[in-house]
């Protein structure tokens, strides 16, 4: 059966709520269905004791979920926009991520923080950011960013069952994407990337919505006789270097693409790792495609001008191959 990204997230949450009484959902308006309708109907089905609305208190609800996770619950917290995870940073970074370590292994925080990121038509500077790079810099966290409904289904379930604090990043542009859900597909492991499209000439590394941009670019390149392999990272922390290395060892050329600002973005870490771990394999520099160094503007023309697209990837690959 076909599901939109929103419907599949709902199904995954519904099933996990049914499967494990420790699972609880909380967040602003989640019992009312959430700002994007992801949790619609779940409060009616599982009760408002397990699917709870919260006040607009990002700091406290993050702490609340963390404290509950220390005591037997497996909370799934929704932070409506990733831009507002800025208000959860103290708890996530100073407490949630470090609890296992600071306690010498006595305690763990089985918590999933679902949030929604990215730009989509005029959400402007405070509702469009992609801030995942901050979180891969924080020991103790796990960061997951699915690219399709089917992937999101399995990755969300795996995240809820993992037993570690997971930041689960959904891209608003993907919410309406539809996909068939293969029944009895087993759950993807956290920490493993996947080959979204096999290829031989260049490796395109992406995640979340940018995977589709990379696939578009790969098609354009294919038409020009260039075979691009597209890797969907799925998990951003920990990074699946073996999969990346195997691909680059084959293609000898790599490009990392993300919607987040290029400077200090995830692409920097990946490019640096490939540059050092695969130095002798590279026939050219690792290219990085990301957002130029500016906030997301409101006007569509400006937003379009700023956001990286498949043309940027194609151009970068052509440059790379021209060397």
């Amino acid at each position, binding site marked *: 059966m076909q599901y939109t990204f929103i419907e599949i997230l709902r199904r995954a949450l519904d099933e996990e709520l049914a499967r494990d009484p420790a699972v609880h959902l909380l967040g602003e*308006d989640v019992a009312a269905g959430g700002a994007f309708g992801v949790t619609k109907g779940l409060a009616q089905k599982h009760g408002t004791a397990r699917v709870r609305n919260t006040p607009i208190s990002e700091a406290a609800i993050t702490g609340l979920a963390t404290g509950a996770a220390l005591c037997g619950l497996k909370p799934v917290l929704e932070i409506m926009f990733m831009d507002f995870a800025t*208000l959860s940073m103290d708890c996530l970074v100073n407490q949630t991520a470090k609890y296992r370590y600071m306690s010498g292994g006595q305690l763990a925080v089985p918590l999933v923080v679902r949030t929604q990121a990215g730009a989509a038509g005029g959400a402007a*500077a405070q*509702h469009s950011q992609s801030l995942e790079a901050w979180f891969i810099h924080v020991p103790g966290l796990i960061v997951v960013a699915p690219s399709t409904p089917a992937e999101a289904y399995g990755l969300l379930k795996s995240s809820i069952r993992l037993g570690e604090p997971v930041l689960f990043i959904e891209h608003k542009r993907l919410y309406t994407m539809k996909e068939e859900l293969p029944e009895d597909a087993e759950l993807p492991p956290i920490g493993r990337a996947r080959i979204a499209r096999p290829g031989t000439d260049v490796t395109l590394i992406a995640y979340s919505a940018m995977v589709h941009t990379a696939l578009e670019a790969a098609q354009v390149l294919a038409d020009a006789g260039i075979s691009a392999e597209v890797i969907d990272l799925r998990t951003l922390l920990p990074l699946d270097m073996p999969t990346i290395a195997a691909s680059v060892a084959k293609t000898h050329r790599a490009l990392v693409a993300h919607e987040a*600002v290029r400077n200090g973005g995830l692409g920097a870490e990946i490019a640096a790792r490939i540059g050092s771990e695969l130095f002798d394999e590279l026939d050219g520099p690792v290219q990085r495609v990301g957002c130029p160094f*500016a906030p997301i503007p*409101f006007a569509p023309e400006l937003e379009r001008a700023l956001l990286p697209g498949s043309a940027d990837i194609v151009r970068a690959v052509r440059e790379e191959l021209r060397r």
Partner: protein
Amino acid sequence: MTEPTLADWKQMYGALWRIRLFEGHVQRLAAAGEIPGFPHLSTGQEAVAVGVCTQLEREDVLFTSHRGHGHVLAKGSDMQATFAEILGRQTGLCGGRGGSMHLVDAANGVLGATGVVAGNLALAAGAAWAAQAQGKKNISVVFFGDGATGAGAFHETLNLAALWRLPVLFVCENNGVAEFTSREEHSNVKYVSSFAAPYDIATKTIDGNDLPTVWAAAHEAIEAVRHGAGPYLLECMTFRMAGHYVGDSQQYRSKEELAEIREKCPIERLKRVLVARGVEAEELDAIAELSKNDVQQAVERARAAPRPDPTTVMDYVYRAPTLAAIPG
């Protein structure tokens, strides 16, 4: 300005209509896909904007929330430039960079709306601190919703404003709802003014749909703040007539509830008051008609305005040229 004259009330009646009609166009054009993003309308809450902002000096600084169109217009910002910004045009207040949730009109003292709930409260206190530190006479005003009181920044700011005795007026538009959930689901505290008590901050909870009430309370509050009495928290009980944002189907509200809210329309109320004071209904309708034309013209001019030049997208990140050469 002392007690408004009938002429003043008529002025304000027109101001209410301009906001109502301005946002009517926002709704229409957003629904038609001509306005990007998800604009939030203040429909039903206009009396607060007009009752407070029309009493501010140009030098007084204003901060508002995601629901701030009315406040900006009532403070006197140009309708056309404001609408152009909401459309994302080059001639907009912010050259199309900001949009509905980030309106700034510095020359008119509008220092900004924000998309972060409770995000501007501390900034408004800071602006008040700057006035205090520089011995200026202006005050700082910030509008926010009842939901913002769930945010720690609200409480941190009340404490600071009281402690430093800052000339800041906090205006809460308590419409009893935050997005799709009612006040009861956000707090046991019904009235936002209760939060002022521990700090001994002057406060009042009033009917925010009755313009004369708002005007009088705002007058008292502004005077107090301007004359050094420290911060003031004015809570205006009001009602959100529209959805949370344009496109919100409001399934979480009953037909009855919505009907009741329409009954409380602040524009209708002022009309009844003025008619009772002897103003001809026709005269008021003429004022409404006039506003309609003003707004219509501003909107059309805004729609005819040029779109931003994509090649300017990197402007304004830093002061050019000093730091223009930033990586990325």
